[in-house]
């Protein structure tokens, strides 16, 4: 059973989203996703300043066996990317909800987070896949 923190929101495409106190949203991939991908070797981060809609592509995560698109869980403008992953992509496997975050965005409308799954609903998505 993978780790699904209760305080986060989730997309069915396995990204997590966290509304920070400064109003930005931090995005990463779930423990379930990192486990399914295997050893992560590369992250193609979005450009800072890029505006994306919800469910639009915002980067690629590549493991030894697959490459998958990362989708923005909510629409907004990318305001930070985790440069540390360039040299240490394994951080995504080691700490998917902490230092393994991918990017932060300024949401077009923070209320969009309400459309995402809560931990319980996301656990069902994962259970269906296993």
């Amino acid at each position: 059973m993978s780790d699904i923190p209760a305080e986060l929101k989730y997309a069915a495409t396995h990204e997590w989203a966290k509304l920070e106190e400064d109003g930005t949203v931090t995005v990463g991939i779930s423990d379930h996703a990192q486990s399914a991908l295997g050893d992560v070797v590369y992250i193609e981060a979005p450009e800072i300043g890029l505006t994306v809609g919800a469910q639009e592509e915002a980067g690629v995560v590549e493991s030894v066996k697959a490459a998958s698109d990362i989708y923005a869980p909510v629409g907004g403008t990318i305001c930070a990317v985790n440069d540390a992953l360039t040299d240490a992509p394994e951080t995504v496997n080691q700490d998917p909800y902490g230092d393994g975050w991918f990017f932060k965005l300024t949401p077009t409308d923070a209320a969009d987070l309400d459309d995402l799954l809560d931990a319980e609903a996301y656990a069902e998505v994962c259970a269906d896949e296993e």
Partner: protein
Amino acid sequence: MPFIPHTQADVDDMMSVIGIEQLDALFDEIPAELISDRLDHVPEGMSEMAMLQYMAQRAEQDQGYTCFLGGGSYDHHIPSAVWDLTARGEFMTAYTPYQAEASQGTLQLIYEYQSMMASLTGMDVSNASVYDGASGLAEAVLMAVRANKKNKAGRVLVAESVHPHYTQTTRNIVRNQNVDIASIACDANGRIDPASLDAMITDTPPSALIIQQPNFFGGLEAVDAITDWAHAQGALVIAVVNPMSLGILQPPGAWGEQGADIAVGDGQPFGVPMASGGPSFGFICARGTLMRQLPGRIIGRTEDLEGRVGYALTLQAREQHIRRGKATSNICTNQGLLVTAGTIYMSLMGPQGIRETALDCHRKANALRQRLLQVEGVSELFAGPTFHEFALKLPVPAAGVVEQMMQQGILAGLNLADFAGGMQVAAEQGLLVAVTEKRTETEMDQYVAAFTQAIAATAGANT
């Protein structure tokens, strides 16, 4: 057990499992208007005997000529060891090396090929090869457009002096990919004048610029200035190069202040027979930061659990069997056999051998060029330094001269009337002549005599 992989019984079994009645049902998702009933120009099958007779007849057409023909394919000496080794069953019949534990020989060979190509072009990485130089250029364009995050519009500038077939192939491959290819006109010397480049500046900054060295007409471009100009516009520089010329010319990795970003070309000069124009192999090398945008496969060197050196396909996650429509290319193969020949050629020649061969070509071409310019009525179509190929302007149409010299067993060169496209040159009288290290003094004497005679005869017939 039948030898063929899919007997009708196998096919029927598989169709019944997935619940289809006809094989065509597998292709239902392809829009009907894209499906061709039959392929024109593809002949009916032949028996082995008929095929061998046909091929022997075709091969004969290549024999018995002294070759001064170039235009992208060149008549270099191929040491006997190249094809003796390449034709060994271990190389000749090996399938694509997906299974690393069964393919170490092939994998190591490709790894050595990549290392040699990267060193020759002065770039950081090479892939395992692509089909040919022209498709390599198309891949480089797609790669540059993907990689250029600053200038995203997909506007690509291509020098008019790039091989017209390369440009046509590129246009064909990229035409549905939102790439806009704009041509940079040549000056009166068949080269790109760096001072003219500012005229290409528009509101849409270019994603990439393509320059060929030596160019299609054999001339040397001001690659340093052109590279620096392109970088100042935020464009990536794609270098199209003849690998043999790199024995004496600056490698693309050293062009201008930062070097070209991608280097492509055709490997034919390295151990591949001209064979009526094909097959050949294309190479594509890039700076390290573009590694993940390189299409196709790359072989990496690694260690097994016991610390022993081994080789394996790497960075495969970007290939189409995993990434589907988002793969870096929809062609994920390489030219294994011809790369084997090219790699053995490079190993036998070494940097010194390639340098000496390139110098020999250059000296002989210069010598013949000077002699031909003495012939009455002959002038330079384009002046300036060249590598081993040069463009002449004849006083008569080149077609007749080529035809007459062929009757004397000499392939005089390329009639530029067939290649000039929209270029503002005296194409009908243009002849592109290539000279390799294979051409002897006697052959060049024979060329001069036949050339002089053919021009006089054609001029006489015209008056």
